[in-house]
Structures are given as structure tokens and as C-alpha cells.
């Protein structure tokens, strides 16, 4: 089923999720509180997962949440809390009121309009893609178009046939990273 670019429920949902993702991504880049940035990153991941879900890619959506929002963000926050960045006090950042902050971001601060421009360009591009592509939208239509065919097996088959070698290589790289992290952070026993 292809989707024309008309205002219907799905477009509204997509717009909403995309908007959340974009605003959150913008905050990730510009927020001066690094923990807030990390939490906004989690929001980006969740919003993207929502888009995946809309597109009928449940497995991808769920994995996105599990791995990125759940694990990766937590790791990032963990790293932030362990590092000296935790020293920055909220008061020291001198948070001005929201409206002024918005104004500062948009016009006067050193970031200026740049991230916003990028974000808008990206949004336009995304929307273009969304408008043209034909999406197997099933999630919200489950009652009407019948049960979804599981794409888990599809992903699995692809991973272990077409992409078997990249998959294995990626896992080895991750293992190396894991071992490396342990070696790097493990302190010498002083006693």
C-alpha cells in the first residue's frame, strides 16, 4: 500500500514523532548540561523506534529501544557520571528562562541558527523520502489488513546468509572493544 502525501492520521503521527526526534536531537547538540543531552539522546532513539514501529518494522523498533535507548544511553550516562563532567553544577550553568534560551539559541549564541538549519534540512529530506516511498504500514491497521507477517525471521535469515560475514566481523569488533574497555578502565591493584 503506498501512501500519498495527504494529511491523515499516519502523517500526523509521523510528523509528531519526527518533530520530537528533531527537537531532541537539536537539544543533544546544543544543551549545555551534558546529562540532559544524554537523556535527549535517549528520546531521539525512542522517537526513531516509534517511526520504525509505524513502518511495521517491529523487530527493529524493539531492538532500537533495547540496545540504543536502554543500553547505549545508559553507558553514555554512566561514562558522564564517572568522569569529571559530573562536577558541573546546574547553578553554574546559569539556566536562563526557556524563552530567552530559545532566542539565544536561535539568534545570538555561538551556535546560532546552524543546528536548526541542519535539522530543518534533514527534516525536509526525511519528509521527501517519506512522501515518495511506499511503506508497509501495518501497525495501526492491524485490524483491517490482517496479522502482520513476522519480520524477525526475515532479519534473522538475512543476517545469517547475505550479511553473515559483516555480522560476524561486527561482533568481533564489538568483542575487541569490550576487552579494550576492560583493559583501559581496570586499575592496577595497588596492594
Amino acid at each position, binding site marked *: 500500500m503506498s501512501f500519498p502525501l495527504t494529511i*491523515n*492520521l499516519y502523517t500526523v503521527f509521523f510528523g509528531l514523532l519526527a518533530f520530537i526526534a528533531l527537537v531532541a536531537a537539536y537539544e543533544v547538540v546544543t544543551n549545555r*548540561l551534558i*546529562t*540532559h543531552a544524554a*537523556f535527549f539522546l*535517549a528520546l531521539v532513539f*525512542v522517537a526513531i523506534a516509534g517511526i520504525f514501529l509505524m513502518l511495521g518494522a*517491529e*523487530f527493529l523498533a*524493539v*531492538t532500537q*529501544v*533495547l540496545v540504543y*535507548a*536502554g*543500553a547505549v*544511553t*545508559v*553507558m553514555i*550516562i*554512566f561514562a558522564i*557520571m564517572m568522569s569529571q563532567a559530573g562536577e558541573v553544577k*546546574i*547553578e553554574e550553568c546559569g539556566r536562563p528562562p526557556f524563552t530567552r534560551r530559545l532566542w539565544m539559541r536561535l539568534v545570538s549564541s555561538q551556535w546560532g541558527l546552524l543546528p536548526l538549519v541542519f535539522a530543518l534540512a534533514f527534516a525536509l529530506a526525511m519528509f521527501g523520502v517519506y512522501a515518495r516511498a511506499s511503506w508497509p504500514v501495518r501497525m*495501526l*491497521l*492491524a*485490524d*483491517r489488513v490482517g*496479522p*502482520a507477517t*513476522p*519480520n*524477525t525471521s526475515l532479519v534473522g535469515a538475512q543476517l545469517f546468509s547475505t550479511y553473515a560475514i559483516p555480522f560476524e566481523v561486527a561482533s568481533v569488533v564489538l568483542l575487541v572493544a569490550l576487552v579494550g574497555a576492560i583493559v583501559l578502565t581496570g586499575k592496577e591493584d595497588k596492594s
Partner: protein
Amino acid sequence: MAALADTWQALLDWYFALPTAILVPIAGLLKVLAVFGWIVINVLILIWLERKFSGRLQSRLGPMRVGRPHGWAQTLADTIKLLVKEDIIPRGVDRWLYVIAPAVVFTPALLVWAVVPFTKNWIVSDLNVALIYVAAAGSLAVLGIFMSGWGSNNKWSLLGAMRAAAQIISYEVPSVLSLMGVVMIAGSLSLQGIVAAQHRVWFIFLQPLGFIIYLISTMAELNRTPFDLTEAESELVAGFNTEYSGLRWAFFFLGEYANLLAASAIAATVFLGGWSGPFLPGIVWFVLKTYFFVILIMWIKWTMPRIRIDQMMEVGWKFLIPAALVNIAITGLVLLVV
């Protein structure tokens, strides 16, 4: 009575005549409301049950005063008390994180219920990746705990949050791995599919090791004693919710019990055949099995001393994960042979 039935019928007719674009979201909303109501009512019962049950384990009576017999209205009274309590936001907290953290902790517990089959037909959404979805929803709660821990600007809270992160991340792995054996036998990630696969024998008998690993890691993810390190009272005062009070604290509490209920429901569905059972209607079986797990977890909680954080990590990484992998290997071998 007849007039009421007519009105109801008319309402239904009117509802089904609505255009799809309106009908579907309304249906969704109704489902969400139903699930929310189910959670709230059950949490009220659960809190009362935990108090009474722990009381009896400890030779006490538990609540007796508010609502006789046996203080059934105690939780209700406490809820009202929490609702009308002064809302305190301590000075120096990270306001945004502090305020939204309870909601973020509670939401995943709500999300899980979207895929739990109450009976053959009562299910919000029979997602085909339900089992991973459950794990994913569970992993979101840690973000909320982090927010509260960091946002509270309190060292005990922060320590609690750090513990929570370490704990939930490491126990998610054995928890998901232990379910994989079930998935391999059932050949489906959907919870309805798993229930259907148990029509002859429950998976608790086919996957005893997987069940034990799941139980242990679930208790760890639920922050229940012996794994209640994130809010270990005697060590961290109250862990991540040290600075919370009133309604916000109530949300943490609600989330904790909703999670307990959800985890029990998943365990009942995956290992005890869910709603299936003879004689009684499906929903009764479902509730019975869920509450069996609830009681089991409470019983363990009120017996065991608390484990230490590094020992807990050790159990998770050095014992549960290898054991879960062995379980998968054995299951695979058996499946190959049979």
C-alpha cells in the same frame, strides 16, 4: 434493564459506524485506559497483599484498622494521603529531570501490558516480537531511575542510580537469554504463540534451568530483596527515591508494583501456560498464575538477606549468563536430535 441494554447497543452501533481514522484511536485509547485501570486496581491489591503476607510471615497481622475486615482500605487511605501531601521539590535539584523521572519509571510498566495476553482474545496487541518488546520496555525504566538519581542532587540517590544502571543492564542479558530457550521450542516471539505452544506441557518443565535463571534475573530487575540494592534502605537511605515525597514518590511505588505484576504475568505466560487451563475461564487461570508468582517473589523477598553489589554482578556475569548460554546450547541440541 432492557432500556440500558438498548442504550448500550445503540452506543456500540454508533461507535462501529465511525470512520476508521477515529475508530482505531478511540479503541486504542480505551484499551490503554482498561490496562491502566487493571494496573491501578491490581497495585492497590498487591500493596495490601504484600503488607498482609509479610505481616503473617513475621507473626504480625499487617494492616487491620482502615476498612475492616483486615484493613482492606489501607492502601486506599495511603493513596489519598500521598495525593494530598505537599509537593516538595528540594532546592538544588535538576528540576526537569526530577519532575519527569517518576513518569519515566512508571511508563515501561504500562507498556509491557500492551502485549500480555489476558485470555485468548483479550490482548491489546499481539506483537510478533512481544518477548523482546518486554525486555526493551523494561530497559527503559533504568533511564527514569537515572533521571531521579541524578536530578535529586543527592549522593545517596546518585549511588542508587549507579547501582540501578549496573544492575539492570547486567541482568537484562541473562533475563533475555533465559527466555531464548522457550523461544526456540515455541518457535515464536509472540506471547500468544508461546501460550499456544504450551498446550501439552508447560515450559517450566521443559526449561527448568531457564525458569530459575529468569526468576533470579527478574527479581534483580525488579529491585526486590535479595537484589534491592538500588534502594537498599540500610545502605543508601532510600536510594534513588531518597528526595521524593507525595505523589511523585507514589508513582515510583506504583511503578515498582506494576513492574512486579508485569514480570509475574510474563513469567506465568511464558512458563506456566498463561491463560490456558481446564474448567475455569482463561482470565481466572491467568490471574491465579500471575498471583502465584507474585506470592513466590514476595516470599523470597521476606526471607533473604540482601546481597552486595559486587557479589550481585558476579552472580549475574559469572553464573547466570554462562548458565543461560548452557541452557540455550542444551535446548538447541535436544531440538536437533528430536
